C-alpha cells in the first residue's frame, strides 16, 4: 500500500528547533512505532506526516513522491487522535461516515460501508449513540472506524491507549494487532510507553530530543542498544549501568567497577585507544545469585525486595551503586541479607564516555 520515507526532516517552532534532522523509513504494511520520552518530538513528527504541521526542512515522501505540500485529506492518510476527537453532536454512524458524506457519497452507500466497518470493530449495536454515551474503549473504536472507512494507505495513531485503564489497554493492544493483520495498512504509531512499542511494533524508532537515537527491530533494540539512552529506555525494569574503567587491555581486558570489584571481558576486541571511564550495562535477568565462591563476581546487601509471585526483584546495594537483580519465583531473602552475584558475560554492554556503545 504505502512506504513512508522521512528524509532529514527538521522542524522549528519559532526559534526553537524541535526536530533536528530525522531520517527513517517505514516499509509497506509495516507497524512502525515512534517512541520516546515527553517532548522528544514524536507527536510533532506524526503530525507532519499527517499534514497538520508543515515541514521546515527535509522531505516526507509517500511511495517515493514528496508530500510536504499536499493538504492532509489528499494524502490518503488517516489519523486516530489521542483524545479520539469524535464529533460530539453526531452519532457513531455519522462520525464514521462523515468523510464520505463530505464527498457527497450517496446515503445508501455510506450506510453500507459504515455497517461493514462497524461489524469489523464490534460497534454495530452502538451506531445510533452519541460519543458522550460511550465508554473510553468504545470511543476509541469509533475513532479507528472513522479512520479505516477512508481505506487509507497509512494510519497514524497518536498515543491512542494513554487514556485507557490498564486492563483495557492490554485488550486494545491485541485488537490493534488483529486489525493490522486483517487490513494490512502501513501504521505509524506514537507512544511514550515502551511496552506498547515492544509488543506491537515491526520496527521501532527511538527518539530523544528531536533526534533518532536508534531505529531497529524491537529485539535488536533490546539486545543491541547503541546508547545508554536506548539501553535504559527499552526494557522494563531498566538495565543496570555500572561505572568503572577498563584495565589490562593487551592480555586480559577486565572491567573494574568504581566500587572495587572486577569482572573479565573475554572475547572482546578492544582497541587501546578506547577511553576510560566506561559504563557496563547489564540487565537484571543477566545477573544470578551465586554462592560465596569464585563463581561470584561481587557481593552486596539487599536493600529492597519486590515480590511479584512469578519473579522477584532485589535491589542490591554495593557501596554507592544499587543493582537490580531478577530472580525467578520467590526467594527467602530479606532486607539486610548479604548476597553474592554472578554476572553473565553474554549480557554485557559497554558504553563509553559519550554514552555510545563500543566496540561500535
Amino acid at each position, binding site marked *: 500500500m504505502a512506504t513512508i520515507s522521512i528524509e532529514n526532516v527538521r522542524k522549528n517552532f519559532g526559534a526553537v528547533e524541535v526536530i533536528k534532522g530525522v531520517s527513517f523509513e517505514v516499509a509497506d504494511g509495516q507497524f512502525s512505532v515512534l517512541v520516546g520520552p515527553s517532548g522528544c518530538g514524536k507527536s510533532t513528527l506524526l503530525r507532519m506526516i499527517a*499534514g497538520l504541521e*508543515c515541514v521546515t526542512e527535509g522531505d516526507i515522501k509517500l511511495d517515493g513522491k514528496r508530500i510536504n*505540500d*499536499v*493538504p492532509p485529506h489528499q494524502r490518503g492518510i488517516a489519523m486516530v487522535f489521542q483524545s479520539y476527537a469524535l464529533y460530539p453532536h453526531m452519532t457513531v454512524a455519522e462520525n464514521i461516515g462523515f468523510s464520505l458524506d463530505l464527498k457527497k457519497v450517496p446515503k445508501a452507500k455510506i450506510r453500507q460501508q459504515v455497517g461493514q466497518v462497524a461489524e469489523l470493530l464490534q460497534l454495530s449495536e452502538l451506531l445510533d449513540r452519541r460519543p458522550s454515551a460511550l465508554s473510553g474503549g468504545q470511543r476509541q473504536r469509533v475513532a479507528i472506524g472513522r479512520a479505516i472507512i477512508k481505506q487509507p494507505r497509512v494510519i497514524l495513531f497518536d498515543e491512542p491507549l494513554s487514556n485507557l485503564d490498564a486492563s483495557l489497554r492490554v485488550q486494545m493492544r491485541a485488537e490493534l494487532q488483529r486489525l493490522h493483520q486483517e487490513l494490512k495498512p502501513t501504521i505509524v504509531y506514537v507512544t511514550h510507553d515502551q511496552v506498547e512499542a515492544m509488543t506491537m511494533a515491526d520496527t521501532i524508532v527511538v527518539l530523544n530530543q528531536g533526534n533518532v537515537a536508534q531505529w531497529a527491530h524491537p529485539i535488536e533494540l533490546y539486545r543491541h542498544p547503541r546508547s545508554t539512552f536506548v539501553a535504559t529506555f527499552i526494557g522494563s525494569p531498566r538495565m543496570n549501568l555500572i561505572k568503572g574503567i577498563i584495565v589490562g587491555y593487551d592480555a586480559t581486558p577486565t572491567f573494574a567497577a568504581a566500587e572495587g570489584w572486577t569482572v573479565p571481558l573475554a572475547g572482546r576486541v578492544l582497541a587501546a585507544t578506547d577511553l576510560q571511564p566506561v559504563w557496563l550495562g547489564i540487565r537484571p535477568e543477566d545477573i544470578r545469585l551465586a554462592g560465596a565462591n569464585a563463581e561470584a563476581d561481587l557481593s552486596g546487601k539487599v536493600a529492597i525486595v519486590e515480590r511479584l509471585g512469578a519473579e522477584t526483584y532485589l535491589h542490591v546495594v554495593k557501596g554507592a551503586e544499587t543493582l537490580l537483580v531478577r530472580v525467578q519465583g520467590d526467594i527467602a531473602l530479606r532486607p539486610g541479607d548479604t548476597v553474592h552475584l554472578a554476572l553473565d558475560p553474554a549480557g554485557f554492554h559497554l558504553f563509553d564516555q559519550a554514552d555510545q556503545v563500543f566496540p561500535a
Partner: protein
Amino acid sequence: MTLRKFTRAEATAYGFLTVTLLFCLLPFFWVFLASVDPNASLFLSVPKGITADHFIKVFTANNGRRWFFNSLVTVGATTALVVVVGGMGGYALSRTTAWWKSPFLYAIILVRVLPPTALIVPLYKFMLFANGLMSAVVRSVVPPDSARSAMQICGFVDGYLGLILVLSAMQLPLALWIIKTYFDLTPKDYEEAALMDGANGFQRMHRILVPLALPGLGAAGLLTFIGAWGDFLMPLTFISSAELQLLPIGLFRAFQRANTIDYGYLSALALLYMLPAVVAFGLARRFLIQTFTGGIKG
C-alpha cells in the same frame, strides 16, 4: 500551498477585525477631540489647539461638581449596600439546602429580565406614599428649617435614600447570583476548620469568609457600580430638584438646551463620566474570569 491558504484566512480575520474596531471606536473620536478643543462643536473636527479649560470648567462651574458629588454619593452608597446585603444573601443562597432555594434562584433570574420602565409606575406611587410617611416622621423630629435638607437625605422621592434603595434593588439580583456562584466554588472546609478552631459566627464571617470571598465580592461590587453609575431611568424618574441631580441626567438636560450648549464642556463632562465605568469594567472582567471559570461550563 498550506502556508498561503492560512494567510488568506488570516487576512480575512484581520480585515474584519479592523473594520469592527473602527466601527466601535469611531463615535468616540468626537468626544475625545471635542473635550480638548477650545472651539468644540457637536461635529467631528480636528482641534486647532488643545486646551484643558473644559475639564477645569467641569469642576469649577457649579453644576458639574454637584452632579459628580451626587453620583458618587448615591452610587457609592448603593455599591456598599449591595455588596453587604448581596454578600450575606449570596452566602446564604449558596449554603442553604432549603426547599425554596431553587424557585428563589429562578425568581432572581426572572427579575433581571423585567423592563425597568414597567416597574417605575407603581414604584413611583409606592415611593410617593413612603415619602409621605417619611416626611411626617422627619417633620416631627427635626426643626422646620432643616426639614428640607433632612428630606433631601431621607426622602424617598427627590431624596438620596430613596434613590439609593431603588438602585440597590435593581442591582441586587446580579450581585446575588455572582456571589452565590462564587461561594458555590469555595469549599466549606475553611469554615469548618474555623469552627473547629472555636470561632463563632461573626468571627468566621469577618476573618475567614470575607477575605476568602473578595474576588467574588469585588466582581459583584464593580458590576453594581457600573450598573448604578450608568442608570438613567431611576434618577430621571425620582429626582426632580436640580441640587440632587445625578451625572447622567445632568448631562442629558444640559444637552437639551438647544442654543447655548457648550460642547467642549459637555464632552469633557461625558469623558469624565465615562472613565470610572470603563476602568471598573476592566477590573470587573479580571475578577469575573476568576469567579466564573467553572461556573459557566458547569
